[in-house]
């Protein structure tokens, strides 16, 4: 299962790699220039880059002048046979957002010759949405070659992880293929909520942790205090912390040696039967499904017949290789190695991430596998104009090929016509999906207000899980409503604790823990209804804490809540796409806010329009939209004819963007705007 890789680009790049492999071709010719070698020399002087000349000491036997670690795996002339398990390290970088993970990854890639210095920043963040938002949503993997001070060459597989709470599932998946992790912490900001969450994810998986304090070049950096925080929070000894600046290169020379020395090699038996972990997969437009695997035992070669343990499906390995960083066929992968594989799979849904693969008819004990991702947020996605449905359908198909974590089913709305009801891992996931639909697939969409999967229990004990507020029964009696909750971790400077507690209380939060984290920081743990995170919680949190509080959450249990369906009525008719589920105490306030917003967003009509909110069978708010009184252009002569035409055409375009709800025209923006409005009272 894989997400968010721009299809196509990868293999086009792979073709370039093949061209570069020709001996006279300078690699990465685009970036190559005097400055580049100067950069490498600088890095080498710093003892940071891999050195072409073997170090004096160490195992001389491992040193082979025919191979050049400063040029990466491909141009360095390596084969996978150079790297027995003892010379392999599989690791991740885990960090809070903006703590410099992508920059550090870039430096590691440059220093080992995998990419050119000074090339495109954030190499691993390939998607436009990732670069724009400064986040990683899709895990990437890259194999690096590093010549350690012992003189031996090591294959370091960096498995990048997404940096947002919605994608924590993806993080744990990536970590399953690692034996260690770099815990990257901003030396000014210190431990943040995601640092905590990611640390425990790694800790639970028994990974060796290498703490790295980044941005030590900044004036505001306080590496000593942050090291003490790590000691307090995670029992990490301060001397273990590396102090670096990925930006300036300060201290980076210590990072790769620490990876080699502190992270254990994969433990596998090279002579055993093949046992592979499928830890990721993505769809490529030209090549079909690309599977990312770690070979735990044995070896796999091109042409091998393999079986997926979960389904018993057999495949033939069509191509196997390393991501160095572009796909590079090696013909085989050996024990402990991480690489990609093409097995003729067409749909990522067939690739059960977490699955165990083995040779045909040579079954091995399967790995525990991954728990499937669960949709935590649902929303309707509709084409901007009804005529756009087919285009949207095609775009949805292409995008879900690449993101099997989105669940999709057809939906029909009275207001918006044919569309889809989609399930997402979280709100960011939803937003990223929408953005990708629009950016990469050119679809213009309306996304309805997100809703969480509530469970409605009827008096007879029958239970229904709702994916759509419109499914909330209003005519039958309800025994109870259960809603999903989350366990939220918030880390904040002490000054803001009061206002954050107020915010959480407004959001029906339930405090679980209040701990001092040291260095003037507090850790708060709250039980919050997932629905309350919708809309603007994150913005509010940032605003009440001047941007300093950080936030992370994990799924928690369902709890009973007094929830109601809130309908918006336009001229007495309920608009299904605007329905939402709210807490009884908030129904009136939310209803009032939605009606006011609707009144402000809607154009005056030819007649008076009543805007009402209804909850629990009664009207809780009402606004009136007055009719317009005149709509005329007085002067129309001579050259004015074309000008007036343009004006009317513009008005017409406005009308075409309208969705007709009964006899009332509602602009599309209304749906966007009302979606953004959370359930804040």
């Amino acid at each position, binding site marked *: 299962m894989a997400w968010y890789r721009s299809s196509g680009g990868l293999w086009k790049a792979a073709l370039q790699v093949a061209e570069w492999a020709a001996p006279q071709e300078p690699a990465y010719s685009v970036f190559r220039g005097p400055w580049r070698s100067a950069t490498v020399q600088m890095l080498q002087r710093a003892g940071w880059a891999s050195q072409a000349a073997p170090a004096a000491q160490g195992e001389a036997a491992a040193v082979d002048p025919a191979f050049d670690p400063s040029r990466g795996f491909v141009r360095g002339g390596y084969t996978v046979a150079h790297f027995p398990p003892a010379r392999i390290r599989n690791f991740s970088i885990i960090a809070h957002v903006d703590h410099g993970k992508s920059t550090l990854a870039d430096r590691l890639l440059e220093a080992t010759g995998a990419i050119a210095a000074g090339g495109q920043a954030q190499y691993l963040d390939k998607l436009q949405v990732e670069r724009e938002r400064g986040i990683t949503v899709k895990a990437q993997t890259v194999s690096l070659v590093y010549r350690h001070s012992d003189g031996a060459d090591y294959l370091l597989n960096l498995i990048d992880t997404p940096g947002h709470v919605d994608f924590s599932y993806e993080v744990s998946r990536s970590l399953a293929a690692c034996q260690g992790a770099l815990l990257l912490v901003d030396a000014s900001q210190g431990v943040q909520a995601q640092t905590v969450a990611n640390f425990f994810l790694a800790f639970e998986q028994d990974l060796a942790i290498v703490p790295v304090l980044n941005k030590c070049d900044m004036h505001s950096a306080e590496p000593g205090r942050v090291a003490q925080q790590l000691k307090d929070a995670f029992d990490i000894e301060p001397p273990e912390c590396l102090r670096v600046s990925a930006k300036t290169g300060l201290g980076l020379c210590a990072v790769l040696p620490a990876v080699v020395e502190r992270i254990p090699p994969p433990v596998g038996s090279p002579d055993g039967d093949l046992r592979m972990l499928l830890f990721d997969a993505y769809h490529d437009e030209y090549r079909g499904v690309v599977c990312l695997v770690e070979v735990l035992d044995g070896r796999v070669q091109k042409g091998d017949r393999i079986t997926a343990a979960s389904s018993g499906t057999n495949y033939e390995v069509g191509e196997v290789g390393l991501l160095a960083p572009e796909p590079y066929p090696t013909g085989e992968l050996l024990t402990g190695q991480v690489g990609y594989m093409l097995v003729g799979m067409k749909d990522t849904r067939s690739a059960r991430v977490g699955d165990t693969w083995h040779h045909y008819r040579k079954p091995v004990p399967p790995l525990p596998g991954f728990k499937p991702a669960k949709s935590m947020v649902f929303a309707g996605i509709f084409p901007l104009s009804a*005529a756009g449905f087919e285009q949207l359908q095609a775009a949805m198909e292409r995008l879900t090929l690449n993101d099997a974590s989105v669940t999709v089913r057809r939906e029909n709305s009275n207001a918006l016509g044919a569309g889809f009801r989609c399930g997402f891992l979280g709100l960011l996931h939803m937003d990223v999906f929408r953005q990708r639909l629009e950016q990469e697939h050119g679809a213009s969409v309306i996304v309805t207000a997100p809703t969480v999967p509530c469970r409605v229990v009827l008096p007879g004990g029958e239970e229904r899980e709702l994916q759509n507020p419109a499914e909330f029964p209003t005519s039958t009696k309800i025994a109870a409503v259960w809603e999903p909750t989350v366990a939220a971790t918030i880390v904040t400077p002490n000054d803001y604790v009061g206002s954050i507690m107020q915010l959480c209380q407004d959001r029906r939060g339930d405090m679980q823990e209040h701990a001092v984290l040291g260095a003037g920081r507090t850790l708060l743990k709250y039980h919050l209804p997932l629905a309350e995170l919708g809309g603007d919680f994150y913005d509010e949190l940032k605003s009440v804490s001047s941007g300093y509080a950080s936030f992370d959450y994990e799924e928690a249990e369902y709890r009973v809540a007094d929830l109601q369906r809130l309908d918006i009525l336009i001229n007495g008719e309920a608009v299904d796409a605007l329905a939402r589920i709210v807490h009884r105490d908030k129904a009136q306030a939310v209803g009032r806010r939605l009606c006011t917003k609707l009144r402000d967003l809607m154009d005056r009509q*030819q007649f008076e329009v009543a805007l009402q909110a209804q909850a629990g069978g009664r009207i809780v708010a009402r606004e009136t939209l007055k009719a*317009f*009184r*005149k*709509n*005329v*252009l*007085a*002067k*129309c*002569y*001579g*050259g*004015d*004819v*074309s000008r*007036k*035409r343009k*004006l*009317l*055409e513009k*008005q*017409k375009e*406005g*009308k*075409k963007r309208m969705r007709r709800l009964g006899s009332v025209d509602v602009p599309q923006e209304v749906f966007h705007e009302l979606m953004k409005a959370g359930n804040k009272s």
Partner: protein
Amino acid sequence: MASRVVPQHLRALAWHAGAGRFAATQALGVAAASGAPLQQNLHPRLWRALCAAAAEAAAERQSPVEEADEEPTAAYVHLPFCKRKCSYCDFPVIAVGRDLAQAPHVQDNMQRYVEMVVQEIAASRRLNWQPLQSVFFGGGTPSLIPPSLLEQLLVALDRQFGLAAGAEVSIEADPGTFDAARLRAYLGMGVTRVSVGVQALQDELLALCGRAHDVADALRAVEAVHAAGVPSWSLDLMSGLPQLTEEMWGRSLEQALDAGPHHISTYDLQVEEHTPFARRYSPGEAPLPSDESAAAMYRQASAVLRGAGLEHYEVSNFALPGHRCRHNMVYWEGRPFYGLGLGSASYLQGRRFSRPKRLNAYRTWLQGYTADAAAQGPQVAGAWLPRESADDKLLDTVMLRLRLADGLDLCQLAAQHPQGGEAGELLRAALAPHIARGWVIARGGGEGGEREGSAGSSSSTSGGGTADGRGSIEWVRLADPDGFIVSNDIISDCFAALDVTSAGEA
């Protein structure tokens, strides 16, 4: 030059041969382009046959419903000089200063400008066979131009396009720029209609608008018009001005009627971008009247002026019988016209073309235009533009006709457009709710009278069913004032309905 002589001569031949005017012209254009001297070597009768054949071929290339080009009957001449630019104005205007109209350098500028327009006229191809039926001098303030210069323009127009006996020749004139003598001079050279830009009858409002005259000037202007015996004149007012109240507006309307004009225009203020008004005011907010109040003023004008026997023949125009502005009707009926001078728009051979709005740009454009004319013979401005498509023409027709009390003839529309029948159906459907509300008045084929679509009458016709009622509608017009006042909404509904076809077609 042969090429100039041939079409002139042969246009007449083809004309008499009975070929469609446009087709023949086009055929001749082809013939002329392929070798002008050809005709000289041919027997006239053979040449005529050739022309007829070419005309037929050209006619066949046209879609069957598309008419040959109608010939222009009207010319607009833009005279941009004003004493000062009004605060709401976004027309191309050259402000000369309040008391400087007689200054020698201003007179020189006017002289040079008129010379340019005369050059443009001379370089323009005559597309009309009949002499012009109307000329309109608009501005700016055309009455700032000395009569002698105006005469030069009229002479040039007559020389190039012909000016019919009895043609309507209008001139816009602002109070404070003319007296009876000047008007007599205008009348003497063929002007028949004067449009007096009074705009407001309150000094404080005139000052707010940056007008270069006061109420006393306006009253003197009216006296001058009467003294000169102008055979048809219009008094122009503006509603929706800042600080204008419904009560003031009512008095203005009465005063306007007392002035005894044959025609009254009442333009509701439009706050145009990049004008001082746009910086000062926002529509619907004080000191501009509220939407409700502006709507009331519109209704007031309609009631008061119609009550005085004027016909509300266009959204903003009222006229005594026989005094509609013939020239403006050309625009509103979608017929072709010449446009001459700075920023003017022409509609010729199915092409709408606007000249540059800045003097330097216009001068540059004119140089190219006259150079082309010297090299290739007289020009049609904007000839390089694509012809207006049948769809564009359809939308123009709907938009313009619905602004007229004469309304839109759906049968005629069906005949003029390739998909006119379908368009008619879409329009009937789009207008049905407006008919039901009484904003649009429809007339069916069989029934004699108009059907006011109020609630009462719709129940009276409900026996026939709405679908039937809709199908028999042959003609529609906007109700006065309920439909006129929301004309944009109704027309854009029509546009949206017609857009469905083009989208389905694509």
